[in-house]
């Protein structure tokens, strides 16, 4: 049972959080992917280091949420805040860390002039779908579409 009285801190991500993010991702997915997270964290740090957030409990990073403001994507010209990756250590779920990180990102997106926040999620994952719905995300007029591009005959 998580200790809800433990000291929580939400702050922008930095380069020293990579190890913790790798660990959280490994706990969730079972895969050790340091290269992936080094690339992703560097991407966000070089573009807008104040946007992406981590959640610390008692000084240990147990959650992350990465994103940025973009304009011109898919013909959407106005600046939009994009939530692109997030994860919470399974041992620390149920204490509102995701909501608090989202609130911090939302404030930053507002300062950047983003009136809409967007994301793309696998809605068949109940945890992800439930979390985004609880935050207030709803269907968009923009739909993600896909087509298989595997070579024929395979």
């Amino acid at each position, binding site marked *: 049972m998580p200790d809800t009285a433990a000291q929580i801190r939400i702050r922008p991500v*930095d*380069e*020293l959080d*990579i*190890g913790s993010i*790798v*660990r959280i991702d*490994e706990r969730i997915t079972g895969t*050790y992917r*340091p290269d992936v997270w*080094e690339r992703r*964290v*560097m991407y966000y*740090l*070089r*573009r*807008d*280091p*104040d946007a992406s957030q981590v959640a610390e409990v008692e000084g240990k990073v147990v959650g992350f949420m990465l994103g940025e403001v973009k304009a011109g994507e898919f013909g959407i010209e106005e600046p939009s805040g994009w939530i692109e990756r997030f994860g919470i250590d399974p041992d620390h779920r149920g204490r509102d860390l995701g909501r608090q990180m989202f609130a911090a990102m939302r404030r*930053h997106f507002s*300062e*950047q002039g983003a009136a809409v926040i967007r994301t793309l999620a696998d809605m068949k994952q109940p945890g992800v779908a439930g979390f985004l719905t609880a935050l207030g995300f709803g269907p968009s007029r923009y739909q993600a579409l896909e087509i298989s591009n595997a070579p024929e005959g395979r």
Partner: protein
Amino acid sequence: MKVENVLLEKKYHDAIEHWSRHNFKDYPVLLEKWEEYFPSDEKFCLCAKLEVGTPDLIQIGEQKGEKKRLEPDQLTEEQAHHLLAIIKAQASTEFGSIQQHSGTLDRANDDQDRMWVLRVMAEELRHGYQMIHLLLSKDWSHVSGGVTGRQMVEEILSMTTGNHVLDAFNLDYDSFIDNITFAAFIDRVGKYQLTMQKVCAYKPMADSMPPMLREEAFHLAAGVIPLRRFAQRAGSGDPLASMRSVQHSVNKWFPRGLEMFGDERGGETNVKFGFKDMKNREAQDLYIEEVRKMLRDINARFVRARFPEYSPEQAEGVITELEQTRGSHRGLQHEDLLRLPDRRFFRRKGEAAFEMIGIDGETFTDADEYIRYLSKNLNEGYVASRDLVNFADVLRKVKSGTMTVKDGIMAMPKLKRLGGMCPCSKGVRWVMEDESGGQTPVGIRA
């Protein structure tokens, strides 16, 4: 978050671009390949950036609550003098690091790492530009001792590795490991300084900090991520990557980084004047904890590569075990892991100047024994450098009682450029400066 971009008067802008042609030859390469390596990132702008909407009232110090100063002559003479020195020192570090990075940039064995460092250099150029903007956009003549803005710019642009204000910017790099270790350790001190200066009672200085800090986040990552990858290569058994080479670079830069905070006993004036929100030791303590965490993280990357079958918890356990026992684990020695030197190790300034303390806090009583110890724990290129020869010479004098520690701190030779501002115009000389400012040439470098 709103930022105003400001260009210097054309002749000064041109002077900085001219400087870059001598000291940052790959600048055009970076601009040309920007889209390839940093797709859709905001284009690089050689300009001063000022954050709009920062606090209007002084946040700390004796004048807390008063309106922030907008002009140098609204500061007391003592404050203005002090702040002018901070701005000039900051400018010196920005241009200095570009000169250092240039020396070994082409030795990067990964194109992406090289481009990251090139971007770091460009952003340091912008930071130097920012400081020059602070010097030129207002009138500092009442505290500059008759030195004009133009002369201050000339002085800054004529500095070269060896005569910058802070020691960390007077050391040549010996390999690309120094490029990334410097970014991880020395740029981190820069982050602390900029963060502390966000409160600055002089508003143009405070407004300069947030855009610089955002860029600094990339600089730290451009050091830490290649170090992590290097540790992964070392752990995987790549014969061309060793943790020892990183440790030697850490031993070189960490002591200089600590000294950039200023003497551990000082910093009160900055807080009193409302220029920074922490004293030297306070900031240094936080920095030490941060770099300790960084090294542990890099060690974890190394151990996971060495034992791919280990879980994160097992890898952490190995690090803790080796730190406690200083022994070995399945052939992995304690010495194979990175460790943070004692804060008194290899110091030439501050509270521990010329104390002879080893990496793990061990003490030495004989100067030559200590110099031999340093030579084993620093990389060969640096051991053969002028800087270390000078350090050894002063250390011997201090320890034999022929020189006081205070004089030892003053006695480290500096390179001085004699002549015009263009780096191609004159050679520079090694000089010893006495307390009255007199100079004795001791060598020439073309």
